């Protein structure tokens, strides 16, 4: 493990060897993606999406939380207005990606766009957390970020299909704790990023604001509200 002091020391680059390293980096994320992908396929089938619609959505959108919400809103008598509504809800749920990709600028900002934008197009919560961890260990190869994204993407698509076919076999996923797979993965990813309790003040503010917002506002606004509050806190307080 490296410490916080040598972050940002290495200059970003992109190598073929990084593609293999990225596939390895993605390994702990792939079972998580698989479980979540099967669950999405199931939800899609139960809400009337065809297999091709569900698979296409996984391939093109590749954003689990927003896909679940879209599946719940899905109707077989789709209207143009409803298409716009789905787009707006998707934007709300996925707004955090804006801040997540912003956080990659100090690392990847010096690279040409063709090396960064394809990888950004495949950015997810688990992929971003894995890449952030890789960066905090002193890694600088953008190919690692790209190939870990591709691995998670393929896992996600591959898991959607059996999930749709099985639709409803696992009737109560909470019984097996499957609803907590993502929260557990999130906190686990945070362990290597721990930099002492002082840096965690912003995390605490983020969590508190999110809990409060979840009581007051509908939908997924609580994540954005929490993240902005946490980030601003970190900006205001000197280390």
């Amino acid at each position, binding site marked *: 493990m490296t410490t916080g002091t040598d972050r940002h020391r290495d200059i970003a680059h992109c190598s073929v060897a990084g593609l293999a390293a990225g596939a390895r980096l993605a390994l*702990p994320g792939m079972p998580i993606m698989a479980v979540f992908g099967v669950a999405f396929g199931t939800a899609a089938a139960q809400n009337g*999406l065809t297999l091709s*619609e569900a698979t296409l959505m996984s391939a*093109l959108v*590749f*954003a689990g939380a*927003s*896909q679940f919400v879209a599946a719940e809103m*899905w109707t077989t*008598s*789709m209207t*143009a207005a*409803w298409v*716009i509504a*789905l*787009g707006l809800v998707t*934007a709300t749920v*996925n*707004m*955090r*990606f*804006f*801040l*997540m*990709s912003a*956080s990659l*600028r100090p690392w*990847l*900002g010096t690279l040409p766009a063709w090396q960064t934008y394809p990888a950004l197009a495949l950015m997810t*919560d688990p992929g971003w957390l894995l890449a*952030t961890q890789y960066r905090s260990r002193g890694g600088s190869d953008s190919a690692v970020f790209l190939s870990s994204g591709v691995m998670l993407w393929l896992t996600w698509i591959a898991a959607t299909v059996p999930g749709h076919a099985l639709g409803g076999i696992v009737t109560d996923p*909470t*019984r097996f*704790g499957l609803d*907590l797979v*993502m*929260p*557990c993965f*999130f*906190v*686990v990813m*945070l*362990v290597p990023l721990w930099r002492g309790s002082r*840096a*965690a003040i912003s995390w*605490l503010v*983020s*969590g508190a604001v*999110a809990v409060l917002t*979840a009581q007051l506002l509908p939908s997924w606004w609580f*994540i*954005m509200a*929490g*993240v902005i509050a*946490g*980030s*601003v*806190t*970190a*900006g205001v307080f000197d280390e």
Partner: protein
Amino acid sequence: MSEADLGLAAIVVMAITTFLIRVGGFWFMAHVPLTTRVRRMLEALPGSVVAAAVLPIAIKSGIPAVLAVSMAVLVMRASRSALAGVLIGITAAALARSAGV
């Protein structure tokens, strides 16, 4: 447009929206000077995202969820295996629920 076409259109709209958000933050930061303060704000994002996503869910789902994330952190710290952390975390929640917690 038929209803199947509109279903396809919905997926494409979702995809384009999500793509623009995904690259938007990175693109935007090209036009913001990376001061120490901005760097600090960006570095706080991983922890903030996790806290904001997990805490409301943990509170809503109660004791089994709190048990699951606590176990996950402890196992991760001891074993450095993310997968072991997640597996033991959700197993703890499943056991707690089957015991009626």
